[in-house]
């Protein structure tokens, strides 16, 4: 610890960031809480009462629970074996597969939903094909099943990346020790590998849980009658008929309380089960033979095919000829032309808004990471907790909170670009803060002390010594933040106006209107931007994966 109590510039960073968080996150959330207990302007709990009185409302909680827990369990059951296989068995084209896994996770979930509708929906190509050639009806993709399939495939890569990272910290001598004592195969995985990576599985599962709980676009598109909480909040808040801000606020408060308790329980378990491991020699990837090899390949290939299929199909349909809203025979660039002429401004908006948010994210993440790691105190601890709040607060709830708080002077921000940028920055900051903190823990403080002992000031030391060492971590977090801003829907759908419409919003509205061609063209452009981003990142860092 560098003890320079006087003139510590970091003191001001701590105060400054705390004020920012107080104004732009805590205050809006509190406003929401206040609103929930002020139905119709006077104090009372009738908004909560309304929720529990009607099955139409509390049924959404049951639905949300069902979706969230099922998706979390399915994701873990799918992702852990895939990570284990790819990290221990030699799979052909495994580096391509890893990139595809990453790609499959960085599109908006609702694009997956809409692609599955195109494939397996009532008039989907696969459905029609089976009906016409074999007269077999395929399983219904709408409702719970659809949400489960779409979200599981979409969120699986998160757990995969977490677990993959953890498996690399398991020293092969542990595996060898267990093998030398006759513990092999499934038994080895259950008794040794499983427990060791359990904290990581839990962390990944938590992330999936929160994402599944908060996802708005998927149930909206493919859920049909199956309404989840984000859908309820959205419709209650936005709909012209039943507009009830207080009710929406009450539901939001309950969701946040629930999400927080899940978060805390996970923390508690993960903390008790965490082990320090130092890997001298990571596990080796071995070539398998026979049936085991075939099954491993098959499992991975089928999964990656299903995961990437929606995006591939969307790209394919973007090149189809359209007539009105219907795809017809032949190929053309019509959809792209339509996309540029009708919603071309959304592309520009996306870049302006996302880049502004990203700039804020990078600067704040670096500063906050530095103070939380290098100046641990009660205040920075509070800051740390505040920065992690957006993990728990679903996007639609943050959107409502921001609207509730900033719809009157002095901070009249609703319907401005600032509120969009704000919501992007708040929601996606945690990624960059996390990765910046992680790398800063590895940067030895001794090099900073050396610089100071050689006469460099605090600021110069930070700029010349610490910051350059932090950059790779900042960069990998920033890429994640950037990619997830591009596909942000649940908050921005509440906050956008026609002047601040992003590509993701445009895709969503085009899908709702049935303009599948335009939507496909736009999401292909979005995929293209994603791929380019990743390629630049890989080129810059020489890595082949994004660490979470």
């Amino acid at each position, binding site marked *: 610890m560098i003890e320079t109590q006087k003139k510590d510039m970091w003191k001001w960073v701590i105060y400054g960031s705390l004020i920012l968080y107080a104004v732009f996150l805590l205050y809006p959330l509190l406003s929401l809480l206040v609103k929930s207990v002020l139905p119709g302007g006077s104090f009372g709990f009738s908004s909560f009462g309304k929720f529990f009185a009607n099955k139409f409302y509390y049924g959404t909680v049951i639905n949300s629970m069902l979706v969230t827990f099922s998706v979390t369990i399915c994701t873990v059951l799918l992702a852990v074996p895939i990570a284990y296989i790819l990290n221990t068995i030699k799979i052909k084209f495994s580096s391509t597969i890893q990139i595809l896994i990453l790609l499959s996770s960085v599109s908006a979930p609702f694009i997956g939903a809409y692609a599955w509708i195109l494939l397996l929906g009532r008039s989907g190509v696969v459905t029609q094909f089976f009906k016409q050639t074999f007269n077999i009806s395929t399983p219904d993709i709408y409702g719970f099943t659809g949400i489960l399939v779409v979200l599981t495939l979409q969120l699986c890569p998160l757990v995969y990346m977490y677990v993959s990272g953890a498996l690399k910290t398991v020293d092969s001598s*542990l595996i*060898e*020790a267990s*093998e*030398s*004592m006759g513990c092999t195969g499934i*038994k080895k995985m259950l008794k040794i590998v499983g427990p060791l990576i359990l904290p990581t599985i839990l962390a990944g599962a938590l992330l999936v849980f929160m994402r599944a709980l908060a996802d708005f676009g998927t149930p909206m598109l493919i859920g049909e009658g199956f309404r989840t909480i984000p859908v309820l909040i959205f419709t209650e808040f936005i709909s012209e008929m039943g507009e009830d801000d207080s009710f929406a606020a009450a539901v939001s408060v309950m969701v946040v309380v629930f999400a927080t308790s899940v978060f805390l329980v996970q923390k508690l378990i993960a903390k008790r089960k965490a082990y320090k491991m*130092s890997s001298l020699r990571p596990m080796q990837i071995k070539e398998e033979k026979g049936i085991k090899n075939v099954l491993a390949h098959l499992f991975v290939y089928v999964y990656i095919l299903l995961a990437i299929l929606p995006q591939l199909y969307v790209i394919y349909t973007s090149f189809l000829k359209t007539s009105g809203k219907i795809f017809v025979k032949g190929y053309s660039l019509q959809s792209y032309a339509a996309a540029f002429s009708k919603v071309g401004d959304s592309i520009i908006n996306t870049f302006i808004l996302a880049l502004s948010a990203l700039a804020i994210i990078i600067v704040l993440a670096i500063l906050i990471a530095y103070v939380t790691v290098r100046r641990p105190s009660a205040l920075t601890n509070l800051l740390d907790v505040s920065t992690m709040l957006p993990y728990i607060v679903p996007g639609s709830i943050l959107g409502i909170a921001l609207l509730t708080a900033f719809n009157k002077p002095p901070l009249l921000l609703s319907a401005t670009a600032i509120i969009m940028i704000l919501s992007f920055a708040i929601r996606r900051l945690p990624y960059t803060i996390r990765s910046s903190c992680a790398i800063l823990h590895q940067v030895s403080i001794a090099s900073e002390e050396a610089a100071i002992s050689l006469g460099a000031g605090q600021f110069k030391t930070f700029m010349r010594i610490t910051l350059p060492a932090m950059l790779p971590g900042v960069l990998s977090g920033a890429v994640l933040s950037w990619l997830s801003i591009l596909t942000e829907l649940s908050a921005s759908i509440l906050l956008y106006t026609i002047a601040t419409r992003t590509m993701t919003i445009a895709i969503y509205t085009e899908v709702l209107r049935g303009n599948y061609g335009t939507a496909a063209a736009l999401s292909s452009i979005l995929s293209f931007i994603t791929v380019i981003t990743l390629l630049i990142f890989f080129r810059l860092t020489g890595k082949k994966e994004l660490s979470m």
Partner: protein
Amino acid sequence: MSVRIKFKNILKKYGNTVVIPDLSLDIKEGEFFTLLGPSGCGKTTLLRMAAGFNSIEGGEIYFNDKLINNLSPGERNIGMVFQNYAIFPHMNVFKNVAFGLTNRKVPKQKIEEAVNKILEIVQIQEYKDRMPENLSGGQQQRVALARAIVIEPDVLLMDEPLSNLDAKLRVDMRNAIKGIQRKFGITTIYVTHDQEEAMAVSDRIAIMNKGIIQQVDVPQTIYQKPNNLFVATFIGRTNVLAAKVSKNTLILNGCEFTFGKTLPSDQTNVLLSIRPEEFFISNENKGGLKGKIEHSVFLGLNTHYFITLANGQEVEVIERSKHGTALFAPKTEVWLNIDTENINIFDKAGLRNLSLGGNV
């Protein structure tokens, strides 16, 4: 139950790189056998072939008369101690030690007895319920050792088990390891790059370099009668000096030394390996190599002198420290004589020890 181990024409390749070209070795029943060599010499590779973690590209390994090439590690009845201990971090000490027995479906009662007994022997009985993260390095090492021997293995394999410990603990632990090995009489293969450790624990040592065994002998022979210059320089400290030889006279920097044995007559240019204690130092001219003191290091029992010879070569000399006399000051002129009966003489390539007499 202990076994003999036989390595027969072992070949190890990684891709097209040959790591061990053709190695044969016999280890006796109950022997504490050490593979010693610089890093990358193939010692760990050989150990891991015996354990079953590395594939065998050619040759055979036998435990007694049983060929084990195609047995999985779990079927070889080995106990293995790893460099980083490989203690399972999610199990307490008792469960770690019991792990092997549990896998063999030994009854619970028996497991408890066996584990308690072994914990007492390695003296970590009181840490039975602790998690590994609350143990010191030495204690973790004891757990690893207990876990390896509680299954009563035929062979105990240890891969640089002490290299992560500090110097003092290393000495304590190597005594403990040696004591326990002797008590159980398990045939043991021990890998290390630390020669002092090897000397301290081993019944016999194999010196390896580049996948080839240079010498297999008891520690004393390895040190005093090395087979070649590599062994001479790898084990202990030594000064290597070029010399000419004619019959039983050595000519070194123009000085002549008589030599008790007769060397093969075709050798004229040779290399001498003179250990620091095989020099006699004097500040009076009683003949011998002339040199000048560079500096000295007093280490209690012994005093080390670093001396530049007339030809500019620096040599190290060790002398038993004397009472009441000052050390030779730097720049003092001294004369060195040589214990010619004990030094080793190698051919000029350093491949053969010429002073071993007819058995070379």
